[in-house]
């Protein structure tokens, strides 16, 4: 079967997300690879948003823009999204607005039969599930789970609405639709990074998270708050981002693995804290979910615009690590790694995600938990006689104890300090030694960094170099280019600072692919590897990179090569 892309569209408040998630879960339960992504406006009601679900037999975790099926919950949604619908695509709407429309009067029925238009979306998705040939029961199980906290009444009403919609999709509808999704055997996880990261944090032994709400990062602390007791993580909504990071640093000093999460603007407020963590050598994990800036920018859209800002964040010089996971499984592993390395090197690890990653759900076949787990680096107080928090060592790593752990006293200071953490004015010996100690850790970190992923490098003429969330899109872009006769390879970074010792194969034409306007990765790689780029594909309209976009821009710029 070819991949099927179903787009559900409607205004904020019409339940696009609810039924989008329900349909994605249903299809996943039916045994298919599912990838969903969302685009929506920064408002609570109105506007037009979409929830796209890509369905495939194999796992294809990348967005498609063109739709095979469009379920439009209102007329405006048809107007806005109909251009995405392929010629032979199908519209599911209240009215016949083009050829190949399955008409389901979901709003009218919701009002008349269910006493409120809030059921329209469920009726519509019921009809869509029927059209796709999936059993009603599969959807119903999902809906029952989804509405469980809202009470039995709400569950019952939604099941009835789904059933009503299901029954409306008569044989005519099903016949009009060339696609059916018979049950398959595959079982997998359907998960987003904002679920994978908090889950992994818990697995890594994170005990403390403070944050201030900011899209698209808020879901991380929301997840942990809900599971607070279960996972034994204390969560706190801070009064602002500055409090969030300083609280987390305090907790970290206090012995708790700690984290915070935010987006660019909130991170801007945290960078003094980043520098503090660097100075006092407090482990800390920070998730920065990027969205287009500057300033408030496009709060609900996606970008990779904070790479150099993150790498250079904080005044002064200190070691720090920046990771940029490419999908939820990678994010799961990187999160555990982030906590371990933050602890080992007693410094900040930043995880750069973005709105695209944050609001998408990916099919993960297996989490490979056996490959990763928490490693504890807190020292044993018994083994230490004369404890000094900043004891000078060859690798710059001093044994870390936490206050109250034993009779050893743990003192930390944001001023330049001596081995005991006291303010120093001894420049030539102490201050210099401490600068060198911290930078020695940077060298250590550099050795931990994984090399970039190389794909199809042999024989490749051109190489697309990307980072973070664009991995799948780039792979698909290469496939499309390959069909046009272009031999392309990929080098993909998910660990972007420090950069690993790495040599770019010679004789290739390198292009960066980035969701930003200035080519930040290119600038970074030029400075670290002296690498020259032939071209760069940049997207900065707030929408995610796709294989098709990459193919098109590559051809635009290279004149088809």
């Amino acid at each position, binding site marked *: 079967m070819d991949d099927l892309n179903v787009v559900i569209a409607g205004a904020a408040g019409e339940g696009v997300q609810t039924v989008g998630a329900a349909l994605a879960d249903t299809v996943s339960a039916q045994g298919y690879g599912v990838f969903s992504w969302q685009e929506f406006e920064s408002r609570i009601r109105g506007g037009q948003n979409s929830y796209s679900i890509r369905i495939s037999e194999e796992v294809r975790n990348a967005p498609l823009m063109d739709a095979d099926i469009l379920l439009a919950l209102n007329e405006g949604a048809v107007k806005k999204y109909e251009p995405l619908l392929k010629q032979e695509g199908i519209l599911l709407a209240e009215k016949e607005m083009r050829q190949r429309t399955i008409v389901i009067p979901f709003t009218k029925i919701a009002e008349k039969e269910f006493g409120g238009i809030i059921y329209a979306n469920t009726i519509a998705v019921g009809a869509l599930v029927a059209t796709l040939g999936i059993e009603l029961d599969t959807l119903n199980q999902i809906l029952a789970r989804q509405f469980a906290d809202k009470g039995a009444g709400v569950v019952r009403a939604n099941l009835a609405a789904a059933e009503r919609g299901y029954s409306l999709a008569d044989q005519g509808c099903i016949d009009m639709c060339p696609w059916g999704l018979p049950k398959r055997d595959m079982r997998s996880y359907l*998960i987003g990074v904002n679920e994978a990261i908090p889950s992994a944090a818990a697995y890594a032994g994170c005990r403390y998270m403070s944050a201030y709400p900011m899209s698209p990062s808020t879901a991380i602390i929301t997840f942990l708050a809900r599971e607070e007791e279960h996972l034994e993580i204390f969560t706190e909504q801070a009064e*602002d981002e500055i409090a969030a990071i300083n609280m987390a640093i*305090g907790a970290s*000093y206090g*012995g708790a693995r700690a984290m915070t999460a935010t987006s660019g603007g909130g991170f801007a407020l945290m960078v003094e804290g980043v520098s503090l963590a660097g100075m006092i050598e407090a482990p800390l994990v920070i998730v920065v979910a990027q969205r287009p800036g500057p300033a408030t920018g496009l709060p609900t859209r996606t970008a990779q615009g904070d790479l150099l800002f993150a790498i250079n964040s904080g005044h002064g010089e200190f070691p720090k690590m920046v990771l940029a996971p490419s999908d939820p499984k990678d994010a799961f592993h990187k999160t555990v790694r982030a906590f371990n390395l933050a602890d080992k090197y007693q410094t900040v690890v930043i995880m750069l995600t973005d709105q695209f990653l944050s609001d998408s759900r990916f099919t993960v076949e297996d989490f490979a938990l056996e490959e990763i787990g928490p490693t504890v680096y807190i020292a044993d107080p018994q083994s230490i006689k004369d404890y000094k928090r900043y004891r000078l060592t060859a690798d710059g790593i001093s044994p870390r104890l936490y*206050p109250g752990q034993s009779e050893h006293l743990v003192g930390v200071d944001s001023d330049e300090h001596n081995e005991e953490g006291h303010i120093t004015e001894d420049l030539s010996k102490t201050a210099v030694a401490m600068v060198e100690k911290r930078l020695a850790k940077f060298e250590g970190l550099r050795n931990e960094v994984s090399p970039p992923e190389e794909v199809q490098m042999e024989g490749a003429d051109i190489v697309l170099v990307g980072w973070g969330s664009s991995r799948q899109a780039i792979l698909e872009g290469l496939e499309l280019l390959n069909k046009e006769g272009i031999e392309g390879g990929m080098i993909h970074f998910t660990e972007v600072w420090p950069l690993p010792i790495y040599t770019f194969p010679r004789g290739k034409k390198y292009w960066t692919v980035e969701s930003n306007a200035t080519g930040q990765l290119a600038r970074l790689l030029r400075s670290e590897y002296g690498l020259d780029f032939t071209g760069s594909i940049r997207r900065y309209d707030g929408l995610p990179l796709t294989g098709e976009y990459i193919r098109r821009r590559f051809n635009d710029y290279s004149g088809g090569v």
Partner: protein
Amino acid sequence: MITVEEFKSKAEIQWCPGCPNHAILQALKMALVELGKAPHEICLVSGIGQAAKLPHYLKCNFFNGLHGRAVSAALGIHVANPELTTIVTTGDGDCYGEGGNHFIHALRRNPDITVIVHNNEYYALTLGQASPTTMPGEKRSLQPKGVEIAPLNMPAIAIAHNCTFVARGFAGDLDHLKSLLVEAIKHTGLSYVDVIQPCITWGIHPMRWYKERVYQLDEEYDPTDRDAALEKTEERTERMPIGVLYRSSPLSLYASRFRKTVTRRPLAELRPLDREKMAGFLSRFRSG
């Protein structure tokens, strides 16, 4: 038995000789002795400023963080290890200027920590600029014609938010200050002590001026009377009351939800989730 000597730190004190900060340090040591605390049971938390250097001068665990952020750091430390006696030593600039937002929101949380503000009415370390508590009319370097705006009244804000323990101390009355600190540290919930700390370098009044004005609240004063307490916070020029201005019972206690449900033990002692539990947890994302 622990003595004041045992709290002596190796760090050289960088305050001006004769600065009343020395008395606050002494009072704190005496209070800790009286409470029978050992150095490793205590964590002093500060920001940046003269006041904020105190943690270096008292042997214990300490966290000398960023200017204005001591209270936030203390909240994290307190949750991470509720067994510690967590005390913030901060200045009027640190706590009421840069850190104003954190303190007012800490009042809402009511953590079980003590906040001691060395209120010298200036930014002393940065050479004596006006602080949020500098008296109107005073000429300072950035206000050469005199401060024209009203001082911040943080004790009043604390009282209006039912802070459970609001006191004012005086660095010129060591015994009284020590007793206040003993009470404050013993108190469960946020205890807040604003200490009148004349700066002998940048200040305009000699110690004597303060001594003439300071008086101890007596037994007739009822610290549960909110209106009276609010009025007392405004006596700052002619007469200056010291003692416990206000007490109330808390709505909440920061981190109590966690301590109730999980443990009073340090979070570092909790065992991580094992692989099987994690696998089980992840199954919620599993389809079908």
